[in-house]
């Protein structure tokens, strides 16, 4: 493809990268040349936290068929959640703490 076309999704959750778990804020999705997968083109998905730098990244490169299978699996999992009436209570709790210290 050789394009810079990118589809973004603002997301909340955690990803496990090289240095352990970190908060992810965005998923970047493109269809282009993979860095590693033995494919000419692949669906490239990066779960990132831009503020933490380029290494804060969980990357996958999937064949188009695999990506469609993944989409179906996610939809199925969400339907499971809907049946249990929990899928809409999804938002990650954002830690907000105000600390004071007496020195």
């Amino acid at each position: 493809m050789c394009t810079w076309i990118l589809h973004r999704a603002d997301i909340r959750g955690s990803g496990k990268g090289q240095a352990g778990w970190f908060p992810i804020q965005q998923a970047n999705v493109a269809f282009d040349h993979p860095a590693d997968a033995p494919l000419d083109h692949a669906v490239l998905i990066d779960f990132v936290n831009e503020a933490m730098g380029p290494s804060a990244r969980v990357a996958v490169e999937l064949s188009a068929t695999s990506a469609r299978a993944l989409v179906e699996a996610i939809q199925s999992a969400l339907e499971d959640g809907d049946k249990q009436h929990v899928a809409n209570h999804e938002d990650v709790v954002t830690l907000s703490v105000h600390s004071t210290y007496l020195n």
Partner: protein
Amino acid sequence: MPLYGPLMGETTGIHGHNADLIDAYLARPLGDGPYPGVLLLHHMPGWDEWSIEATRYFAHHGYIAICPNLHHRAGPGTADEMAAATRERGGVPDEQCMGDAAGAVAYLRAMPSNNGKVGVIGFCSGGRQAYLAACELHGVDAAVDCWGGRVYVPEEERQGRGQPLDLTPKMHVPLLGIFGNDDTNPSPEHVDRIEAALKDAGKPYEFHRYDGAGHGFFATGRPGYRPVQATDGWKKVFSWFETYLQPART
């Protein structure tokens, strides 16, 4: 220069666009020269091991070769991390790329062992950038576009912007094009359009289109690698640079 002579390979810093200091891989024969220079513009997956190997390959054949990290500003990180972060930022602007390329050319030309000639070669997105360099970058003497996509951009996809093909009348160096006929970007039809523009503008060029090959068919270790076509393609590249970058033999 004897083939299999001693080489030097190292990461160095060059001043690119806006005088930004960026990484560049430099590979050169260890002799006094004079040697022609080659600027290698890496593909979209980034400043990766294949690009570095290709840079050393030119040194192995008697060229001072440099490959700037066009994704440097998205770092630090690994090649794929910087490529992903660059995509997130919207890609490499052409102006920035030409600035980095100009810095790399200046670096090559300042080397005492350079023979005063510099060629540019690019792969994938770098092929498109090599086409731009052939039209806009001063200090280069020959160019090679290896399957650069979006040199020709269909009108409905231009979104009011220009395309590199529009710059063809400004092309000031001979251009070699290497393409796979199974590629979709550039497709054979795209390559036809590029060739027509070069003919119309009266520019010296040579195109080689390989059957049974798609995009990126030089890339060893990738499923698109085509050893027979790639071996012949590399010969075409070295022959091109031999013609335009080496001093005339007396």
